[in-house]
């Protein structure tokens, strides 16, 4: 990897890497000219951004887990599914969806509060599940890629079946509260309220995560660990414990993303995790394994691409994302933001 400051050379500033951002802008601009309908374009772009930010919330934990300990968790999808199903219970008739409870109250504030409570509970439970998953499934196979892929895949099947045994195999409806239904009209463009809500939550997570990673000591250690784990270990920091924390946090974020995704889809099946997993893998490969910024860029690209092609040519929507990944990888084989530590 180039750009290592050399002690004998005068240091120079590395220009910021804006090419991937330009790619996103180019994609949006291209879609604008193809569609030739500003209002449709605006609707789809907001939808794409919302989807992209949801994907980012889910993918950020996975990519950090890989960067820090070289662990590729194929079972990340179970946290998505668990988060979504916990949300159905919290917002269902046994929880806040009961007659007279918050979700059905006339005040929008209470409705939002119910949704937020569902998200927090989803995060807490998936975080706990993540802790267990790390202990039981991932820990015994550190450093063995082949077994990791097989075992985490097996773990995903087991948890998916457990979800089916608790919540049933049928699709479950996840109702949105009154105040998040419907659209805002901006000129001719209809913008779904929930998508704006998802964008807000996504930006909040993005802000919190970037502050945590760039301003705190833990964030510094995580970033350093991703760059060079052995060096951080030899300086006396417990990378293993840090990794467990990152794994739990990543699982909780996936649970949050799952709850959002479930509200976005409005119906949930146990396979939701596996479906989103495919998009997440595209995101983290495209972003560069281990890079949080890269996964943000890639998630936005995938979200926009999925919505544009879903409108223009629905049959090839999933292939368009694979095509996008192929194109990006032939441009930057290590992903949009490569990490020096790639072993």
């Amino acid at each position, binding site marked *: 990897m180039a750009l290592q400051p050399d002690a004998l050379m005068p240091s120079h500033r590395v220009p910021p890497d804006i090419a991937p951002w330009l790619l996103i802008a180019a994609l949006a601009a291209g879609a604008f000219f193809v569609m030739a309908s500003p209002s449709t374009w605006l609707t789809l772009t907001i939808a794409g951004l919302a989807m992209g930010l949801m994907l980012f919330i889910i993918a950020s934990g996975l990519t950090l887990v890989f960067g820090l300990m070289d662990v*590729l968790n*194929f079972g990340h999808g179970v946290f998505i599914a668990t988060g979504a199903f916990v949300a159905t219970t919290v917002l269902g008739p046994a929880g806040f969806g009961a007659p007279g409870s918050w979700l059905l109250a006339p005040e929008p504030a209470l409705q939002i509060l119910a949704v937020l409570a569902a998200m927090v509970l989803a995060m807490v439970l998936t975080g706990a599940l993540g802790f267990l998953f790390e202990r039981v*499934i991932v820990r*015994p*196979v550190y450093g063995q*890629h*082949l*077994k990791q*892929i*097989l*075992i985490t*895949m*097996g*773990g995903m*099947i*087991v948890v998916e*079946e*457990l979800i*089916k*045994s*608790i919540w049933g*195999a049928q699709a479950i409806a996840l109702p949105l509260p009154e105040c998040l239904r419907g659209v805002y009209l901006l000129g001719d463009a209809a913008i779904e309220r929930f998508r704006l809500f998802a964008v807000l939550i996504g930006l909040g997570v993005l802000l919190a995560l970037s502050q945590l990673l760039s301003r705190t000591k833990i964030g510094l250690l995580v970033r350093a660990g991703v760059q060079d784990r052995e060096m951080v270990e030899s300086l006396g920091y417990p990378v293993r414990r840090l990794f467990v924390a990152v794994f739990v946090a990543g699982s909780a974020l996936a649970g949050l993303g799952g709850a959002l995704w479930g509200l976005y889809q409005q119906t949930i099946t146990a396979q939701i995790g*596996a*479906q989103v*997993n*495919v998009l997440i*893998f*595209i995101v*983290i*490969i495209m972003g560069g*394994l281990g890079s949080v910024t890269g996964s943000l860029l890639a998630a936005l690209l995938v979200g926009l691409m999925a919505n544009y092609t879903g409108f223009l040519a629905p*049959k090839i929507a*999933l*292939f368009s*994302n*694979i095509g996008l*990944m*192929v194109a990006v*990888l*032939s441009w930057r*084989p*290590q992903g949009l933001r490569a990490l020096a530590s*790639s072993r």
Partner: protein
Amino acid sequence: MRKLAFLSNDPPKSRLLAALLAAVVAALALAPLLFPGAKALAVAAKILVFVLLVASYDLLLGYTGIVSFAHTMFFGIGAYGIAIACTVLGPSWSAIGLGLMAALTTSALLALLIGLLSLRVRAIFFAMVTLAVASATQTLASQLSAWTGGEDGLNFRVPIELSAGYRWLETPLPGLGFSVPADGRLLAYWGLFAVVSASFLILLRVVNSPFGRVLQAIRENAFRAEAIGFRTTLYRTQAVVIAALFATLAGALLALWLRYNGPDTSLSFELMLDILLMVVIGGMGTMYGAWLGSALFLLAQNYLQTALASLGQPLADLVGLLVGSDANRILVGVLSWSVELLSPQRWLLWLGILFVLSVYYFPSGIVGRLR
């Protein structure tokens, strides 16, 4: 030891294993004469198809150390190749030949493309890329319903020589306490057996060739293999293409045997899981594991599922009794949950647990244990 050239000088090495293998192969070869009934023959034919599928996957997983989730995609391409050709062109041998050729070409090109693109960067990408491509293909297959019949799949007819109405001997063959009519189904079964056995021996030859040694070197230490001077990407891609071709052949055989193909029979993700489990149970990197793994797994799947159901029945009865009475509600809840866990619909749960446990404790599988 005597040289065993037809086994590529890679014999089972243990008496017990050799005896087991011989028993399985003999039972499969003589299955129509040993076991009466259509179900037994259907299970035996499925075992044969999966022997080929699992052996070709073992070339990837066991010998090269690559995890692919697109093996069912190639399997499905083979099955759809035959199904579409026989539907469009009618039941003739030339249609089968054309369909097989088209399927093999498609698979080879696709495998080459996926391999070159994802193995170039990091081998671990391959697992993720294949997962994405396979799920996209699955969606595509059900959407292109004009060609593939969508979710319903395709029912088609096969050449007369392979159908039940054809007699190649006037007198029925003597079975074990029953007689078997010498019809085209029997011919189809033995044809299947012959193709699978021959393909297996070819695969055994491949893994024991110098090429196969390089694959194993890559599995053990890719960096070192590269340093010695082998172009690992090229070798890995070749392994992917060979495995894809044999998977396609297996898919074609399945379609010919069933005279039907749909997304659930040849493309579903659960099938992929079954293959993984068979490879792990049989033993990764052994080839012979394919026979034992498929036989054991499919027998369990077809005959043990009913046992699981009968295990859950007394519990279900108990819950039925308790629900009416004023028993502890938590107890009833826990009991009815365990009924749910034991029901045949949750078969995949036990499969998953079995899979995780066997990867932990028996990574070398039955064959590895016995050797």
